[in-house]
């Protein structure tokens, strides 16, 4: 058996091979650096033909959401339309310098101006900043805005709350900005424990971070009571928009009492996840927080779009320049393509798909601890052998594993987005049933293990990987 799927590009390197081509040099070379000049960096010497082969072979090792449903809970792995790729790649968008004269960037600013308007309407906020590069970056931005608001009001609030079921980014964002994190319990229905919240919500608390629907995929019906508890003590309510795909055109975080909202464009608005990013996490605020947004914002002055740097209480900047512009372009195009009705259909279909999956799996004997309620866009199943189940699905059924051990150990969080077909959902369910049978019956497992495997490697040796990290390829002498 071969020792590796694709050999490292460094091993393909041969002296004399080149891929690059540069014009003939026209100037006389001088020694400008002297002893500052480094020795050779040891980059590969390969031909372009080899590069093409190498990266194509690597791509082929990835499971691809284009060919398989990717029901990764909380991640909203929907179909990424090629149209948005094509449009975002127009030279007039890709090859623009951020400091070009305003008269030459009017199209770019138009995109940002309208995207801000659309996000305001979807979230029920007064204004957005498009600067944050990701959801977690939006969280940092929102927390800094909240912090600046309280400082401005001469209030010393040092704590930020989030439920025990929150995304890991919430508590990490809190402590990385020097705030104290406190966890609020969830009750047996998976909702915020109001009594616990009431107890912890003191005048020392700046913000309560919540996602609704929450990470159990449930709408917390006490949201107006939650908002009341937070606001009564002068706090701000933060909406983690990771689960926005369930609610577009149905209800708006702003109408529920939220004061700050971040939106993951790479989830809800169809921009690609790109192996982990770039995404974008625009962050919106209510009227009283508008002046605290990062600079610049995009405004319209007569017929001209401008970058506005004069916000009274701005927190400053959270990223160089204006944001992940080509991601913003994709989301903008997506909204134009869908319109109000299309966006509502996104959420409604996503919710139907998740409930269908939950009901059908329940009927096939899977346990859903919160399955006595309708879920929103994702559902959570509990399985004692979830690692094996997830692994069998990939190895023998060519299925992508959903989110495991979240929000609780042994949970399997499934989010079949609106762009999946009913057939693919049914197939996934059947694969789960078969994998589960194998787990329960050694003879079925034995039969399964004789089948063809789809993953390019067998189960990873995680123990060895963690204990003996090898993080770069050493250069051969």
């Amino acid at each position, binding site marked *: 058996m071969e020792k590796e799927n694709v050999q*490292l590009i460094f091993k393909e390197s041969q002296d004399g091979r080149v891929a690059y081509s540069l014009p003939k040099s*026209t100037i006389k070379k001088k020694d400008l650096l002297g002893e500052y000049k*480094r020795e*050779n960096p*040891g*980059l590969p010497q*390969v031909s372009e033909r080899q590069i093409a082969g190498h990266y194509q072979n690597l*791509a082929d090792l*990835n499971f*691809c959401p284009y060919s398989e449903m990717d029901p990764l809970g909380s991640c909203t792995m929907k179909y*990424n339309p090629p149209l948005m790729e094509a449009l975002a*790649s*127009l030279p*007039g968008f890709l*090859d*623009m*310098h951020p*400091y070009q004269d305003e*008269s030459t*960037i009017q*199209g770019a600013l138009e995109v940002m101006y*309208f995207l801000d308007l659309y996000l305001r309407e979807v979230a029920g906020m007064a204004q957005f900043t498009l600067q944050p590069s990701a959801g*977690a*970056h939006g969280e940092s931005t929102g927390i*800094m805005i909240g*912090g600046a608001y309280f400082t401005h009001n001469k209030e010393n609030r040092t704590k930020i709350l989030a439920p025990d079921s929150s*995304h*890991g980014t919430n508590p*990490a964002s809190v402590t*990385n900005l020097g705030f104290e994190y406190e966890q609020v319990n969830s009750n047996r229905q998976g909702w915020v424990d109001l009594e616990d919240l009431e107890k912890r919500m003191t005048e020392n608390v700046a913000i309560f971070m919540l996602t609704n629907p929450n990470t159990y995929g449930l*709408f917390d*019906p006490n*949201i107006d009571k939650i908002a009341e508890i937070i606001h009564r003590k002068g706090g701000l309510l933060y909406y983690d928009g990771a689960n926005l795909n369930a609610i577009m*055109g149905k*209800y708006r975080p702003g109408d529920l009492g939220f004061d700050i909202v971040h939106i993951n464009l790479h989830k809800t608005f169809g921009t*690609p996840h*790109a*192996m*982990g*990013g770039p995404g974008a996490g625009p962050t919106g605020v209510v009227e009283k927080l508008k002046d605290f947004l990062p600079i610049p914002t995009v405004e319209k002055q007569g017929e001209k779009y401008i970058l506005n740097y004069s916000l009274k209480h701005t927190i400053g*900047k*959270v990223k*160089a*320049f204006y944001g992940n*512009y*080509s991601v913003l372009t994709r989301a903008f195009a997506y909204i134009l393509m*869908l*319109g109000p*009705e299309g966006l509502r259909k996104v959420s409604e279909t996503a919710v*139907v798909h998740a*409930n*269908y999956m939950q009901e059908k799996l329940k009927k096939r004997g899977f346990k859903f601890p919160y399955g006595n*309620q309708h879920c929103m866009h994702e559902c959570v199943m509990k399985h004692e052998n979830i690692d094996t189940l997830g692994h069998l699905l990939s190895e023998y059924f060519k299925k992508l594993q959903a989110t495991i051990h979240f929000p609780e150990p042994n949970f399997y969080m499934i989010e079949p987005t*609106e762009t999946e077909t009913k057939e693919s959902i049914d197939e996934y369910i059947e694969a789960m049933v078969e994998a589960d049978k194998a787990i329960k019956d050694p003879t079925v497992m034995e039969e399964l293990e004789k089948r063809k495997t789809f993953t390019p490697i*067998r189960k990873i*040796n995680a123990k060895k990987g*963690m204990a003996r*990290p090898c*993080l*770069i390829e050493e250069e051969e002498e």
Partner: protein
Amino acid sequence: MKDSNSYISTTKNDLSEMLLEIGVNKIDDLYKAIPQKLRLNRDLLLPSPLKIDLPLSEIELSGYMHEISAKNKSNYKYFLGAGCYNHYIPSIVDLFLKLPKFYTPYTPYKPETNQGTLQVMFEYQTMMCRLTGLEVSNASLYDGATAMVEAAKMASRLTGRNEIIISKSIHPEYRQVFNTYFRYGDWKVIEVGVSNGKTNLKELEQNISEQTAAVIIQSPNFFGIIEDLNQVARMAHKHASLFISLVVEALSLALIKPTDFDADIVAGEAQSFGSHMSFGGPHLGFINCYSKHKSKLPGRVVTKTEDADGKTAYMLWGAAREQHISRNRATSNICSNHALNALAASIYLSWYGNKGLEELADLYNMQMAHYAYETIRKINGYAATFTGNTFFNEFVVNCPHDVCLLNKKLLEHSIVGGLDLGRFYPEYKNKILFCITEKTNQNDIDELADILTSLNEKGLK
């Protein structure tokens, strides 16, 4: 006819079958938990930027986007850098960024189904470390400015100190981002001034103390000048502080290796390696460090290991540093990164290779920039602002005109002029920061010089 959502495959028939299975009559029954008074109960109001109401068809949308992208004029000769560089991007880079197997998958949490992504990241880490001379690289961050923030926090965790010294020769927007973040928590940020285009080393030396977690110096700095890194490192290490070398023009790494000057951490921006300017993002933030510091490194890192059969395989390493495992004790809140830009960098670096990258950096950037410098400073009124320094591909000259007006005039010649330094440094009013890359050749530079000369004669009016 246009359907309001052509990306949904679920038919009416599918829907009724699913609702039947669920046991409800209509979709709204699934939203029952939401109190009636909190629901929207109307269509979203999304104003169309065109005369046609939304939704648009693919043909209409495509037409409109072509039209507004044409409003952005980008077919210029750029003499503008300042943290975002107009380098040529080989076709093979853009091609592979468009493979669905690269641009659609999620973060590679499950190694068995993401070996392609993981090996790309491992190779990227290796290339970056060979360029910086360090031992560990994360698999990308958002951008150079946020990488600078993360690197400083990392240094603070490593030293247990809370004071950071930054130089005023660092990109002004980076400092702005830095100052935004470091207003939260118990920090002391000291900004050291500039003299003759470089960090004022005397002032730096006076400010470093046993409280200093890190000294951050950008080199080449915002004015394009290579800083005296050796001296910086010596001063920092004397107080057991860490020296963070900030690199914003990553192409300079082909000629200058930060560990030759005893950098402990190298952080910065690698947009120059295959990412488009893209109006300022997405670009490619990075942090590299020594192995002994890796447990405090933020962001994802890939390790080589084996599968159950002993075959070479790759996986994410050190999840205990990350937010999804450690929550409030994580080394950062990073979840999304810029993996696709890291892929672009890997392909870009493979394409240029050892020899090509050096040639590109030396002949077509540094040497050409010096040619431009010598040419432009001879023009009346365009004397060099800072003298006696070594610079990479950017340089500052005085300007006999208001820079803004001059740049408007250059636009008429399809030229994007240099940065008006007064925009960020009031003390450098009427100074220009020019940038030269392989996309501006000798003829372009001569043409610019001719125009500048003739504008001296004709005036800007």
